[in-house]
């Protein structure tokens, strides 16, 4: 990663060519606006790191297809220095020339032709180091096809460029077909630049120039070949291979060749911000209130003409118009305006130096749930309790969070547990892609794996993928670009071909979209995240016959609604509004099909911390938010409501989901099709099992939950819980167990009430006939025999046990019976009477026989 150093941020602007009104592409859809195409292509430029290239940082679009491009910038150019006559020694010049050739050869190796190289866009970082600017213009505009002005200045243009006509665009692919200038045009431009640089020419230099200025491109050397020219002999020896910065998922030895920085008090630089990466500083610059358009306007660059001036003179009924006056502003203005950094530096000036270098080893502070490493922890904790949207706009808060996360990610996977804990507070948008990958435990040579997958050979699924992609999250500026569509297709194909046991179901596209949007320039990362996400949350959902999996999921969801909101459950059940009718797109896409991107990101920030049952809780939370409306609606209104997902407050939804998750016994959401048998490194995530581990991934005993036939699951209205959960929640065996997420305050009463619905039988004890349970009963349970529990009207017949039941309605009610259906039927009746949190002990009283907790208590005589 390139740090800021002495660089400035520069913004320049140009117009993408606008399409004629209503023109449609081959597929009948309107042509993609050129601005969107440019934005898509631009993303690749942001990945280029080279010591002699200015970094591209950001692109934005504003009205009338205006583009704003932000890049690294330096005030002095080679032109200034030429004019000042500073360069007299040829060796210095040769060194600069070599840097240019090196940068060009790097660009060409990545498929980029500069085409506008000239002395005024070769910037000087220091007197001895150049940085090329504007090199991405030709590439990002699809070889000039997306703009209506020529790229490059005539003086430096190679002959073949001067001879070529305007760019042509293919209607089907919406990409430039011809004429595309090859990289050798840059060799020519370089020749012209060198000609200006060197006043006196040595023999070697003359030879180099002659090579550069070869008219026929076929015989002209490429930048790579020029690097080998004798004149650069010394420079070649000096230049060390450029090592790219840290990558998170790699099998490379990250400490190999590591040079520890030497700290010299003499060169101590108090400008700590300059040590941060450009991307980070630019992100903070925007948080500090920086606005590109405002900067341009202040410099008098973004004058917008009143739209009335742009009206055509005449139009014909077909919709064709004539006589628009061409706006001068549509031509390229190469001025670059420096983004002032004072506001940013001012906002950060009170931050102590130490905050730039947080210590991570203080694990104890992590456990307290405080933000650990900031000196001003008090303030930050306060900020941490503010709404997420405010936190994300708070520059000081983001500053601390980003620095902390950046350090943690560098130490991934070693620091994974710490990342988990921090993610429970929040995830800064700038580092979200990598934090997600960390949460999904992405590791290893992800590039290698992704590159090995055949993403090109046609497969039968292609047609479906092709019709789905242009409909998936197309309001999103990046995802709607042709570049995104290409990447999208590759990702989906990669998943389909490398998971032969699964098939492409519509919805997989939506699921993939958040990962692509986040890791736009890192397909391998997006792919790895997707491949980790699916087995964790959607195990077997993409089987060709996924019916048993979806059935089970929906049945458990129905139980969960009944458990938490009996009134709503009864109403929806009564009108026949079953989850099957509305919740399939929710679960199949983990809500990615029903929410806009910004909401999905916030939802998944938390979803990724939960286990595979957490999404069910989100579903209940959504229903909860719409509760009043649903209760007053009939079937038609309900289903209409969900045909277009109504506005949901995501932060509230997330908080509600967590509450629901924490108050649900873990076995109540048991699903036999959830992922199981995965090897887990237990030491990785201490104390996180509550939230992140799946039930199926933990040791099983005879007291655990077992698979239930789907018919049975659907026939029952309340969830079952395992004996294990019963013992734990009822604190029947001390507090040693910790498998359930359900937490309770200390010294409070057990959070469950056990209702035994068996009928006690008279047995003989010491020659007395007493009413007892032959198998014993659970201590603390109350007895309401099912047979006599309900009056003919369907109400609970009053008795002391019912009074107890009614006085403890906020507790989880576990119904215990014998083998038969009584317990489940009793639970259904309680549900009908709007008792909440009702569940049934799986396998009834028998399961507890061997547990040793059953007591033969004195019967009520």
């Amino acid at each position: 990663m390139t740090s800021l150093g002495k660089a400035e941020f520069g913004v320049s602007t140009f117009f993408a060519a606008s399409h004629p009104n209503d023109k449609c592409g081959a597929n009948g859809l309107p042509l993609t606006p050129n601005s969107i195409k440019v934005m898509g292509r631009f993303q690749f430029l942001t990945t280029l790191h080279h010591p002699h290239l200015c970094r591209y940082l950001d692109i934005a679009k504003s009205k009338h297809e205006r583009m704003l491009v932000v890049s690294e910038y330096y005030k002095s150019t080679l032109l200034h220095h030429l004019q000042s006559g500073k360069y007299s020694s040829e060796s210095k010049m040769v060194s600069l020339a070599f840097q240019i050739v090196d940068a060009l050869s790097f660009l060409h190796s990545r498929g980029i032709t500069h085409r506008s190289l000239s002395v005024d866009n070769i910037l000087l970082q220091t007197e001895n180091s150049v940085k090329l600017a504007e090199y991405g213009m030709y590439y990002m505009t699809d070889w000039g096809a997306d703009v209506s002005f020529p790229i490059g200045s005539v003086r430096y243009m190679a002959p073949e460029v001067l001879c070529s006509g305007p760019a042509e665009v293919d209607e089907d692919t919406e990409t430039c077909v011809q004429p595309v200038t090859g990289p050798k045009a840059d060799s020519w431009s370089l020749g012209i630049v060198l000609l200006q640089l060197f006043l006196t020419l040595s023999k070697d230099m003359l030879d180099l120039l002659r090579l550069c200025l070869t008219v026929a491109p076929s015989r002209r050397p490429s930048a790579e070949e020029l690097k080998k020219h004798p004149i650069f002999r010394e420079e070649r020896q000096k230049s060390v291979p450029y090592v790219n910065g840290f990558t998170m998922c790699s099998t490379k030895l990250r400490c190999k060749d590591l040079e520890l920085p030497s700290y010299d008090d003499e060169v101590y630089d108090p400008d700590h911000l300059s040590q941060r990466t450009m991307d980070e500083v630019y992100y903070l610059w925007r948080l500090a209130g920086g606005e590109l358009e405002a900067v341009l306007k202040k410099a008098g660059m973004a004058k917008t003409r009143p739209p009335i001036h742009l009206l055509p003179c005449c139009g014909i009924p077909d919709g064709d118009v004539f006589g628009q006056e061409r706006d001068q502003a549509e031509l390229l203005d190469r001025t670059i305006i420096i983004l002032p950094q004072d506001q940013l530096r001012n906002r950060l000036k009170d931050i102590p130096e130490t905050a730039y270098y947080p210590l991570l080893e203080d694990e104890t502070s992590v456990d307290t749930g405080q933000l650990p490493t900031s000196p001003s922890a008090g303030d930050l904790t306060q900020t941490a309790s503010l709404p997420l949207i405010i936190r994300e706009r708070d520059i000081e808060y983001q500053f601390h969070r980003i620095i902390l996360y950046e350090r943690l990610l560098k130490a991934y996977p070693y620091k994974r547990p710490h990342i988990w804990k921090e993610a429970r507070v929040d995830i800064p948008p700038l580092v979200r892609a990598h934090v997600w990958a960390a949460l999904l435990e992405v590791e290893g040579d992800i590039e290698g794996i992704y590159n090995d997958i055949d993403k090109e050979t046609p497969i039968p699924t292609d047609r479906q993928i092709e019709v789905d992609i242009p409909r998936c999250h197309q309001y999103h500026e990046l995802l709607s670009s042709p570049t995104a569509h290409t990447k999208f297709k590759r990702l989906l194909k990669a998943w389909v071909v490398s998971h032969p046991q699964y098939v492409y179901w519509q919805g997989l596209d939506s699921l993939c979209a958040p990962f692509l949007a986040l890791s736009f320039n890192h397909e391998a990362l997006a792919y790895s995240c997707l491949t980790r996400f699916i087995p964790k949350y959607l195990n077997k959902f993409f089987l060709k016959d996924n019916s048993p999996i979806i059935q089970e999921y929906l049945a458990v969801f129905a139980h969960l609604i009944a458990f938490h909101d009996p009134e709503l459950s009864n109403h929806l059940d009564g009108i026949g509004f079953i989850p099957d009718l509305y919740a399939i797109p929710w679960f199949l896409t983990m809500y990615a099909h029903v929410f806009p991107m910004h909401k999905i990101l916030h939802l998944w920030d938390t979803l990724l911390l939960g286990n595979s049952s957490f999404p069910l809780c989100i579903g209940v939370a959504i229903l909860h938010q719409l509760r009043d409306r649903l209760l007053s609606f009939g079937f038609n209104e309900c289903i209409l409501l969900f045909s277009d997902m109504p506005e949901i407050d995501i932060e509230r939804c997330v908080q509600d989901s967590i509450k629901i998750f924490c108050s649900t016994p873990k076995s109540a959401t048991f699903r036999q099709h959830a992922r199981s048998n995965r090897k887990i490194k237990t030491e990785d995530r201490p104390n996180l099992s509550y939230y992140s581990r799946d039930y199926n991934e933990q040791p099983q005993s005879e007291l655990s939950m077992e698979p239930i036939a789907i018919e049975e699951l659907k026939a029952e209205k309340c969830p079952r819980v395992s004996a294990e959960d019963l013992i734990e929640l009822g604190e029947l065996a001390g507090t040693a167990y910790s498998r359930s997420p359900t937490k309770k305050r200390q010294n409070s009463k057990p959070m469950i009430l056990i209702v035994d619905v068996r009928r006690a039988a008279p047995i003989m004890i010491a020659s007395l006939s007493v009413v007892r349970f032959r198998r014993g009963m659970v201590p603390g349970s109350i007895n309401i025999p099912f047979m006599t529990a309900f009056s003919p009207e369907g109400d609970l017949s009053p008795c002391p046990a019912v009074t107890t039941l009614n006085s403890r309605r906020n507790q989880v009610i576990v119904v215990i019976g014998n083998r038969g259906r009584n317990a489940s039927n009793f639970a259904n009746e309680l549900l009908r009477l709007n008792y909440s949190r009702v569940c049934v002990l799986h396998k009834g009283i028998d399961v507890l026989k061997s547990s040793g907790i059953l007591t033969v208590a004195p019967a009520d005589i």
Partner: protein
Amino acid sequence: MAGRGGAQRPNGATQGKICQFKLVLLGESAVGKSSLVLRFVKGQFHEYQESTIGAAFLTQTVCLDDTTVKFEIWDTAGQERYHSLAPMYYRGAQAAIVVYDITNQDTFGRAKTWVKELQRQASPNIVIALAGNKADLSNKRMVEYEEAQAYAEENSLLFMETSAKTAMNVNDIFLAIAKKLPKNEGGQSGQQRPPGLRLNNEQNQQSEGGCCK
């Protein structure tokens, strides 16, 4: 208020009769099923209409002489894989629109398959309409009007070429269906809804007793 109450009962006064019909849309994905419904129900058109997963539901009322016809529209997912869901939507439906894309011959083939399936498995007197959508793209036409019309006549289907984008024939095709539907029985589809999801309907169709019709 009182007047309206009376009109809501189909068996009330003859004037202002209300009939409710269940209508299902079928067809290959991306032919424009959801767009047709959106145009008909809300008068809107989204270029990038999102794909439908499972099914969506909307209602719209049209007036026909003295009768008010209320359509309950089930808009289904087009992907072949979701095929197993379809019976739960078309069972008990009084009308179906089978949609294809006039710029894509394959979608027409798929439409024919749907028609066959409906004739075999749906209610015997279901009114089926065939819609050749995307008529605004006639310069890219791959399915000839005459070909589709001949097929529709053979199978006694209503037929129109439609464009959800320009709204051409969208209301008309729904109106034509409304006209063809029998109004005397009062079209009581309101109470019939999918009994529960059987993603694998083939196996369960017969054994399930609780289905609509």
